[in-house]
């Protein structure tokens, strides 16, 4: 079991850290979330019914959404909004500055409802049916959000990048 935990950590931690980051857009909260997910996982009598990745991803998403609803998050948001130091905020070293990441940056600019479906559909590679089951919303709502999210991405992207995206 011990080797398995190490293996599971090696295998999935980076994916989960990214997933949490796409929700929270904050490196430190993502680290806290993934830490919590693994500690819970280690203390859970997990019986494999599906993919461990899917199980851990679901835990991460739930935890990330809890964080976004939390007082801590709201307090940080408020502080950043009013702080004169916003401009001097330390750079989030998790992000890279590269033109290849232009679509990713645009995705992170979206509001949570739209960002979430994009992340689950493209990053997590879930089907519309799977997203619907997970978010407890009708499949048509998932499709509408995906469509609108793509539309919202359009003005943020250059024409050639947009062309790539609509062909996905």
């Amino acid at each position, binding site marked *: 079991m011990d080797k398995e935990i190490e293996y599971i950590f090696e295998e999935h931690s980076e994916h989960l850290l990214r997933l949490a980051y796409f929700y929270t857009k904050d490196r430190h909260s993502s680290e806290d979330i993934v830490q919590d997910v693994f500690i819970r996982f280690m203390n859970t009598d997990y019986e494999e019914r599906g993919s461990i990745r899917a199980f851990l991803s679901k835990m991460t998403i739930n935890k990330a959404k809890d964080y976004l609803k939390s007082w801590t998050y709201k307090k940080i948001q408020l502080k950043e909004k009013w702080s004169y130091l916003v401009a001097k905020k330390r750079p989030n070293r998790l992000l890279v500055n590269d033109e290849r990441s232009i679509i990713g940056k645009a995705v992170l600019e979206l509001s949570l409802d739209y960002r979430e479906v994009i992340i689950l559909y493209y990053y997590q*590679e*879930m089907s519309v049916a799977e997203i619907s089951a997970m978010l407890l919303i009708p499949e048509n709502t998932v499709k509408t959000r995906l469509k609108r999210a793509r539309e919202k991405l359009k003005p943020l992207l250059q024409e050639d990048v947009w062309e790539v995206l609509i062909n996905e």
Partner: protein
Amino acid sequence: MNEIKKSLIELTVDMNESKQLVRKRIMAQSIKKKDFKKNLIAGLSAIVMISMIFLTSTFLMEQQTGTSEISQPTTNIFDDGIFETTANLQKWWRDFADGEAYLKELAYEKYETRLALYTYAKSLGYDIKDEEVQESFQQTMNLMTRSDEAKQSYEELLTKADLTWEEYEKFIMDTAPYDVALKKLEQHYMAIYPKISYSIAGSLAEKHAIPYFREQYVNDIIAFKKKHTLPLHDGNPFAFTGSKQLGRVVAIEDNMFLVAPGATIEDIENYTKEELLENYKDAMWFPMDDTPELSIGDLVETYHKYQTTSEDNVTISDLWDIRLVNEYEPNPISKATHHLTIDIEMNPKVKVFVGTLNWIDTNVEFSDKADYQFVVDGITYQLWSYPDGFVLYSSRGKYRTLNAELTSELAGYLGIDHGLN
């Protein structure tokens, strides 16, 4: 991989720092939890004492009436005194590592390794004679007192460890049989692999002794760990499992094999062993210790912990694990690849599976035809089925070895036999 996923991953390219931080914090958290448990146990000690008195008296009464049966036999292999002194000696590291519980675990690992070496040597038929124990004790004592400087550094160590010189001398005497056992096992592996060094022989001894001890003395281990409130897992779950290296087997001599990362089949065919060693400075010799059947040209992943490099730049290493990544097949046409069509329901699962694996970039070519092939999102995956798990190679030039768990998972999605031993 779709463009959005690619872009999102590229956006957050360096996750290693976060990953290492989380790993460290999970470790610290589990230590904290153990400390809480310890306090709880301390708080309940009065109740436990009363219970112990009750249980002891019941046990003694049962012994007298002969009604007690020990369901799981234990031996007296563990010694509390030796463990406590080992734990005290770990205090030296207090400045570098946090958490008493962690130091206690470290002490247990050290003690368990020494016990494992001792019991494993005995199991191989080696006799630990009194005169050998006495000689080993004397050698250690001479080492400690060989100079004023040496004596002074030992005195500092003992002060930090809250031990007197007499207590430490007793500890050296009590543990001398373990040192004799290690020497015998080093000689044992040197006899099997004459080209390795004594240090590598010692490392191989540990590799074999620890699993033997954990299997043979499982009840003693559980009882001892419970008694000392040590975690019941086998060692640290985040322990170092060895450095990984990918390369081709370029030479086999006696019971040793040489692996050269980056070497190609053409190199093997055109260069001598000496030239290969000259061209590939990372090449390493490994003992054929619990290895699958190997041939020159095979592509392997090796895991090693200890290596020595001689003056003429020949590196010899221990071998803790090995995975055959691609068996060299000089006549690849003799094998047919089964082209798999993925069931429509399974397709999303296979997509997620391959999309989230940590693929390893490689520029090596796989020499034989794959057992299976399937396509996901325009990427072709070739799959080789070996007794220790699947190996995948994608048309994007990346590969992955799968452990038993992932092999079974993928076999289920693809509807094929996992072929595991």
